[in-house]
């Protein structure tokens, strides 16, 4: 489903070397960069993305630049392709049979759909938090450590678990019961555990697919606060059906809509304030004022 395994293994060996070279160069550049507050760089550059499920087109020709260390929200009525688009950024759609994707997703100047790319490594660099909290039926500790273990983490695992849980604002609640099953936590805690799990492999970008839709208002607020905090270290793309949430947490907002042909297209993309206070497109205005969707 993800292509020929052995071939990819061979190719990855080559690209690993190239990547190793890239790290030092790029890291050096990054170190001299100013505080991201000024003008953020581009973390993800989507160019003309179209997607088909079998014969049926779901996303039509979307181009979008996601700014680094910012929260970018994707909004739109259900069925507009926003979750599908989100899953293009970490090649999650590859897991579905019969999906075809055209266009490019550039992350740090490299197309993640280039033929020699390894999807599992894309996903390591682009983490994901899902709609419904989905901790593994393992201990809290093992949930967080899972990704690091399989990716050959050589540092101190205990420290990594603590650091990730702290960043996910869960450490204080669970530090005495790390051996407890992740399923024993409340819904909001589970979702923060999933966030800790995602950031434990040190991604640059974290995708969140309606992360609060299964949570109560208090848990929702904690996750929203967390998103803004995480934006200091990560680039965050969040899909939400809740316009207030988009307005509260995001710096930029993209509005998508599937019209009569049921193909999801990008209608408007701009600073969040701009979208909500001064939308350029009449359809955006209709949506945010609650006239449909």
């Amino acid at each position, binding site marked *: 489903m993800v292509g020929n395994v052995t071939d990819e293994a061979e190719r*990855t060996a080559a690209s690993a070397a190239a990547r190793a070279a*890239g790290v030092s160069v790029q*890291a050096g550049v990054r170190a001299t960069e100013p505080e991201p507050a000024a003008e953020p760089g581009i973390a993800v550059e989507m160019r003309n993305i179209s997607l088909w499920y079998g014969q049926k087109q779901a996303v039509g020709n979307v181009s979008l630049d996601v700014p680094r260390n910012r929260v970018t929200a994707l909004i739109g009525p259900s069925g507009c392709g926003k979750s599908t688009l989100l899953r293009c950024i970490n090649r999650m759609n590859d897991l579905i049979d019969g999906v075809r994707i055209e266009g490019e997703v550039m992350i740090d100047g490299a197309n993640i759909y280039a033929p020699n790319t390894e999807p599992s490594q*894309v996903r390591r660099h682009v983490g994901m938090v899902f709609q419904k909290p989905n901790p593994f039926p393992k201990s809290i500790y093992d949930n967080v450590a899972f990704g690091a273990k399989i990716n*050959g983490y050589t540092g101190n695992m205990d420290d*990594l678990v603590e650091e990730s849980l702290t960043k996910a604002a869960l450490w204080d609640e669970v530090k005495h019961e790390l051996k407890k099953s992740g399923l024993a936590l409340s819904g909001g805690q589970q979702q923060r555990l999933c966030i800790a799990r995602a950031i434990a492999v040190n991604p640059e970008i974290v995708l969140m697919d309606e992360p609060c839709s299964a949570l109560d208002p208090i848990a929702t607020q904690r996750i929203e606060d967390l998103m803004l905090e995480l934006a200091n270290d990560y680039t965050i793309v969040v899909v939400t059906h809740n316009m207030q949430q988009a307005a509260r947490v995001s710096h930029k907002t993209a509005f998508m809509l599937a019209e009569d042909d049921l193909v999801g297209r990008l209608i408007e993309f701009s600073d969040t304030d701009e979208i909500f206070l001064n939308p350029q497109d009449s359809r955006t205005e209709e949506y945010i004022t609650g006239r449909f969707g």
Partner: protein
Amino acid sequence: MAATDMQAGADRGLYVPRLSFRHKKGAAFFAICLAGTLVGVVFLAFLLLDVWRDGAGFLRWEFLQNFPSRFPERAGFQSALWGSLWLIITTALLAFPIGVGAAIYLEEYAPRGFVTKAIQTNISNLAGVPSIVFGILGLQLFVRGTIGIGPSIGGGFGRSIIAGGATMALLILPIVIVAAQESIRAVPPSLREASYGVGATRWQTVWHHVLPQAFPGIMTGTILALSRAIGETAPLIMIGALTFVAFRPESLLDPFTVMPIQIYNWVARPQPEFQDLAATGIIVLLVMLLSMNAIAVLLRQWTGRRYGR
């Protein structure tokens, strides 16, 4: 990808993904799983080939027409074929109505509660009881007419078709009930509501609406259960299905033999000719089983089209 690692995380160098090693492990694992799947397929192919090679020699009309004999070239399967036929019909006539009745009770009548739950648990436990234990039950209850204490219940049926059929019916009852329950459960509740809505009683609803819808599924399950019964040997050995029967049964009280018992009888003899005869018998038995299974599968597909499931 080359530049994806650009973020400055201090621990970036701490990850050593070793991808090509992981992919090699994955490929090996895939190969192992595929090989495991093929073990069963290859074994089945070998078994069928082996049986065909041994048994094809005796496969002619006389084999189906002759009765068992001390001389392999004259030995045949007729009494076993007829015995199996008698037995399977008896089993079906007993197991089908009782099984469907029990399923209707459990799905449509039974109150939610301890008794119903106990019956349900009991059915799934019965399905796991070794068949030979059913044979012992049949031997005491149906052949000898006693449960060991108290007076004998009318003396029993002796080593007859009815005793064998009753034993087999009890053996496959759990399978029939579970299959029937699943079919009945698959009938949409809206249909029942519609029927009650026009004033039908419970039984009228079941008889006129639920059962006709569930019927094909029940039939499929029953045929599969019967195909299990037709291959069963151990319980019938227990109730003493004779291993040398040189006549066709004429009534339910006649002694009988069946195909798998005749096969066992031939396998157990030392002469290689008889073992080849056993293989011939196996060919006939397997053909019969496969056709029953084919009917069940066709029935399932046909109803699948009919109800759009």
